[in-house]
């Protein structure tokens, strides 16, 4: 098996998850939390960080055990590992802030079925060194968090007039509540996707020229 582990860790290992393979905007994975908890920027940030934590830890452990786990039970093993770290994140958030915990609700535990994590474990962590898995996991996590923040910031500013709880819109601004409601989530994501695809198109045209 061509073990990619011998390739060195590069900037690409990290940056992959930011732009080219951004989990939300490019790979369209992990949409459930992306829409459900981005009604405020704070929730979006917390969810992004929790997911990043699980990505890094599970990637590390899966990579560490990659030669030990038999092929037949690998998915089951990955899921147990991921579920463990998700539960840890769950209790961690509860211990840090009850308010945050209530705001995020069951979606913290739903990180375990976030296709990004299982996908990364299967496609990357099981085939690379722990160090590369950590770096790549961090990149993916940061990309995911940034995507969530894009959604969260827009939705909170337009939908509540605030940012991270601080009112930033002028008093006379009537918040567009739709944006913090479910339909708004869909619309904002659709808008960002269009922006993304426009920028990508311009980039490919520029590179081709």
């Amino acid at each position, binding site marked *: *098996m*061509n073990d990619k582990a011998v390739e060195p860790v590069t900037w690409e290992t990290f940056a992959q998850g930011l732009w080219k393979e951004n989990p939300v905007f490019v790979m369209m994975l992990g949409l459930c939390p992306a829409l459900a908890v981005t*009604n405020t920027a704070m929730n979006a940030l917390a969810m992004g960080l929790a997911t990043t934590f699980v990505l890094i830890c599970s990637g590390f452990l899966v990579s560490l*055990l990659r030669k*030990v*786990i*038999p*092929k*037949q*039970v690998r998915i*089951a*093993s990955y899921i*147990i*590992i991921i*579920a*463990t770290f998700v*539960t*840890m994140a769950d*209790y*961690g958030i*509860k*211990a*840090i*802030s*009850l308010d945050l915990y*209530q705001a995020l609700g069951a979606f913290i535990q739903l990180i375990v079925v976030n296709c990004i994590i299982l996908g990364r474990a299967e496609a990357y962590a099981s085939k690379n060194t722990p160090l590369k898995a950590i770096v790549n996991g961090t990149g993916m996590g940061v990309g995911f968090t940034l995507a969530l923040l894009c959604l969260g910031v827009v939705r909170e500013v337009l*939908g*509540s007039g605030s940012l991270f709880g601080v009112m930033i819109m002028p008093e006379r601004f009537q*918040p567009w*509540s739709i944006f*913090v*409601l479910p339909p708004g989530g869909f619309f904002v994501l659709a808008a960002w996707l269009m922006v993304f695809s426009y920028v990508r198109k311009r980039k490919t045209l520029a590179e081709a020229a």
Partner: protein
Amino acid sequence: MTDSTPPAVPAPASGVRLIVTLGGIAVFSGILLAMTYEFTKPYIARNESEALEAAVFDVLPGAVSRVNYRLDEQGLQQLDDDNVDQANLYAGIDGEGERVGFALPGEARGYADVIRVLYGYDHETRQIIGLKVLSSNETPGLGDRIIRDEDFQENFKSLDASLTHDIVTVKSGEKENPWEIDGISGATVSSVAIGKALRESTRTWLPKLSQALEEGP
């Protein structure tokens, strides 16, 4: 640089190896989780206790310390903080050691889900003196005005809870009696739910509380 020979297919692992690996991972994860649980337990308990205390002080203006009680068929029992999860009502004591009032819970279904409230009750004047929405999922900007709207909050500074009449939410601006709550127009379902929560909770708890207080400590 390409491989000249196809990669060797690893022999399928034996059943024993499968079970041992899975079992090993499961045991490791179980240990890790048990450790996390034990480690975070005190922090979580402290958070919950602080949140509860903040809520109690919110609905009982002037209170600086809290006493936990359990009210059931055996009467009113004081509980210490170790058994706080068995408490179903609380008292707030002010700086002079006088009781400001009791804090009781209530709940009713709102627009989206169940709304949970804590309200402050002054036994001397038979009035509700404060209300705090503990958890709600009401529509932001509309239903959640039960939390933000200051005029709505005014309703709960001296709401008649002598039970001569049921507490009820009326249309915005039509409040005439001290046991009525002025609703929020545009958030009817949510404000009616608050009225329902208070009505049912007062009807359930206040008679028992009066009886227990009369029977003495």
